C-alpha cells in the first residue's frame, strides 16, 4: 500500500488548481475549455430529452477530423494556415462531431434505437478508429510513436493571455455557451427544444411541434459542440492526435451539465469548477502520488448527490412496502 500525506495532497491540489494566477489560467481554464464545450453538448441534448452519452466519441471524431484538415493545411504558407487552415480545422471538427452524433440520431429516428446504448457503442468505435489512424494513415513520418505529426505554429490557436497556455478556445467556449443560453431562452427553436424535452407528447399535440425533427436537430447540435471541443483541443493544447487525447471529457461532461442544472450559462462556471478539479487532481497525482482517477469517483458522487437532492425534493418515498409472499395471482402468465 502507498501511504499518502493528506495535507500534502490537499496542498498539491490547491496549488495545481486555484492556488495561483498561473494555475488558474494555465491549468484550470485550459482544462475547463473542453469541459465547457462538451458540457454544453450534454446540456443541450438532455434539455431536448436526448440522452447523449456519446460526447466522448463525438469529441474524438472532431479531434480526428480537425487533425486531417490541419494536415492538409500544414503544407500551405503560414498566412494561409492561420487565415484558412485553422478555421477549416475547427469547422471540420464541428461537422465531424455532428456527423458522429448523427449516426445515433438516425438510428433513433429510423429504428427507435435507444441513444444511450448507441452513443456508448459509437464512443468505443471512435476510440478504436483513432487508435487505428494514429498507427496507420495519420502516423508521424518516422512511424515510431502512435501519434500524428505535430502541427506547425500557423495552425495553433493564438494564446489568450500572453505568457500562459490559455488559448482562444476558452473565449470561444464562453461565447458558445452564452449564445446557446440566449438561443434556448429567447428564440422559437429554443422554446421548441425545451418543450420537447419537458413533454414530447404535449409538444406534439398542443404545440404542433415536429418532435422527431427537434430531437434530431438537438442531437446534431450537441454532437457539433462536442466535435468542436475535440478540434479546439487539437489546435489549442495537444497540437497532435494520439490515443488518450481525451481523459474522459465526454463523461465528465455529464457531471458538468447536471451540476449546471442543464443551463448553458451555468455550464461555464460548472466547467471551470470541474476544470479546477481535474487540474488539481493531476497535480495531486504528480506531487503526492494520489491516483487522479479519483476524480471520476468525485464526479460520480456529485451526480448522485444531485439526483438524491432532486428525489428528496419531489417526495421522500414511503418505506416498508409489503412483500407479496407466496400468494397466487389469479390468471395465467401474460404473454
Amino acid at each position, binding site marked *: 500500500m502507498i501511504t499518502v500525506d493528506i495535507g500534502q495532497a490537499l496542498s498539491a491540489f490547491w496549488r495545481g488548481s486555484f492556488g495561483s494566477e498561473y494555475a488558474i489560467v494555465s491549468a484550470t481554464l485550459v482544462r475547463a475549455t473542453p469541459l465547457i464545450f462538451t458540457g454544453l453538448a450534454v446540456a443541450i441534448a438532455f434539455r431536448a430529452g436526448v440522452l447523449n452519452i456519446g460526447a466522448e466519441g463525438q469529441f474524438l471524431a472532431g479531434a480526428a477530423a480537425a487533425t486531417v484538415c490541419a494536415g492538409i493545411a500544414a503544407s500551405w504558407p503560414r498566412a494561409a494556415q492561420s487565415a484558412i487552415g485553422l478555421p477549416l480545422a475547427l469547422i471540420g471538427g464541428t461537422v465531424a462531431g455532428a456527423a458522429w452524433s448523427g449516426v445515433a440520431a438516425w438510428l433513433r429516428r429510423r429504428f427507435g*434505437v435507444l441513444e*444511450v446504448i448507441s452513443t*456508448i457503442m459509437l464512443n468505443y468505435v471512435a476510440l478504436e478508429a483513432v487508435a487505428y489512424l494514429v*498507427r496507420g494513415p495519420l502516423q508521424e513520418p518516422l512511424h515510431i510513436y502512435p501519434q500524428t505529426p505535430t502541427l506547425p505554429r500557423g495552425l495553433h490557436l493564438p494564446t489568450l493571455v500572453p505568457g500562459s497556455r490559455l488559448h482562444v478556445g476558452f473565449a470561444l467556449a464562453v461565447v458558445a455557451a452564452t449564445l446557446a443560453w440566449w438561443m434556448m431562452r429567447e428564440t422559437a427553436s429554443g422554446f421548441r427544444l425545451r418543450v420537447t424535452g419537458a413533454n414530447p407528447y404535449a409538444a406534439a399535440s398542443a404545440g404542433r411541434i415536429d418532435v422527431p425533427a427537434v430531437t434530431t436537430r438537438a442531437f446534431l447540435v450537441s454532437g457539433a459542440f462536442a466535435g468542436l471541443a475535440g478540434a479546439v483541443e487539437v489546435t489549442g493544447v495537444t497540437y497532435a492526435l494520439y490515443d488518450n487525447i481525451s481523459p474522459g471529457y465526454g463523461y465528465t461532461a455529464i457531471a458538468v451539465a447536471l451540476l449546471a442544472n442543464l443551463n448553458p450559462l451555468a455550464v461555464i462556471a460548472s466547467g471551470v469548477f470541474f476544470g479546477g478539479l481535474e487540474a488539481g487532481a493531476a497535480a495531486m497525482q504528480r506531487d503526492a502520488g494520489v*491516483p487522479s482517477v479519483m476524480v471520476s469517483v468525485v464526479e460520480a458522487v456529485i451526480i*448522485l448527490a444531485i*439526483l438524491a437532492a432532486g428525489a*428528496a425534493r419531489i417526495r421522500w418515498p414511503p418505506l416498508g412496502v409489503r*412483500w407479496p409472499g407466496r400468494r397466487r395471482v389469479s390468471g395465467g402468465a401474460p404473454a
Partner: protein
Amino acid sequence: MTGGAATVTAFLEATVRTATPLLFAGLGETVVEQAGVINVGLEGVVIAGAFGGLVGATTAGLGTGFVVAAVSGAAMAAVFGLFAAILRADQVISGTAVTLLGLGLTGALYRWGFGPSGAALSIPTMHAMPIPVLSRVPLLGPALFDQPPIAYLAYGLVPLLWWWTYRTYGGLALRAVGENPDAARAAGIAVRRVQFGAVLVGGVLGGVSGGTLVLAQVGTFAEGMSAGRGFIAIAIVALGRWNPVGAAAGAVIFGAASALQFLFQAMGWRAPYQLFLAVPYVLTLVALAVASAAGRGGAPAALGRSAIGD
C-alpha cells in the same frame, strides 16, 4: 486433426470464451430489465466484480475470488438500485454515475493497493475441466466442453433462469412489475423491493462476469478492463428479446464477432487489429437497429420509466 478443423475449433473456443462473461452480465441484466429497470451502470458493476475477484483471489484463492467478485458487483448495483428503484431517480443518469464510480474506484484502489503499474501482478487462472466423452466430440466438443467450470455454470444458468422467469410465482411477479407496475402493486407486489432485488441479482451476475474475466481468462487486472462489456450486455438483452435464452444467443453472436479475428489471422488475412476490436461495437449497433426495427415486442412495457406510481 486437419488444419481447417483446428481453425474452426479455435474459432469456436474463442467464441465461447468471449461469450461467457457477456452471458453472465446479459442474464443478470435480463432479470433487471424484466423488472422494468435498465441498469446502464452495468459497466461499473462488471469492473467492480473484476477488481473484487482479483482482491479475493490474491487473499484467499479462486473460490473466494468469485465470491468477492459477486459481492462487489452486488454492492455497486445496490448503489444504482438505491437511486433508480428506491429514490426513483433517472435510471440512465444514475447508471452513468455508477459506471463512473465503478471505473474510478477500481482504478484508484488498484493503483493504491498494487502500485502505479501493477504490471507484475498475475494470478493463476481457473483450469479447464474437460467433460469426459462430450469434450471429445469433433469440432464442438473442445469448444463447449473443455472450459473452466465457471463456463458450465453459465450454461446451466440459462435454462434455470428461463424456468424461474416463466414457471414460478417469483418470475411472474418480476415480469408483472416490468409490464405494469401499477397493476402489480394493486395485486400486492412490492414494486420497489422486486426492482431492487432484481438489480441486486443483476449485480451478482455482473460481478461474476467481471470475476470470470480476471479469474478464468486474463489472470490479472487492468484499469477499465471491462472495455464496454457491460454496455454490450445491455445490447445483448435487447437483441435477445428480454429472454434468458435469447440473451444466450446474443452472447454467442458477440463472442463469434470478437473471435473473427482469430479466424482471419488463421486464414492469413491481414488487417489492422483495431478494426477487429471495433467489430463487436459496430455489430451491436446493427443488431440494435434490427431488433428495434422489429418493434418493441418482448420489451417490458414499463422499461426505463422512472416516475411510476407506488
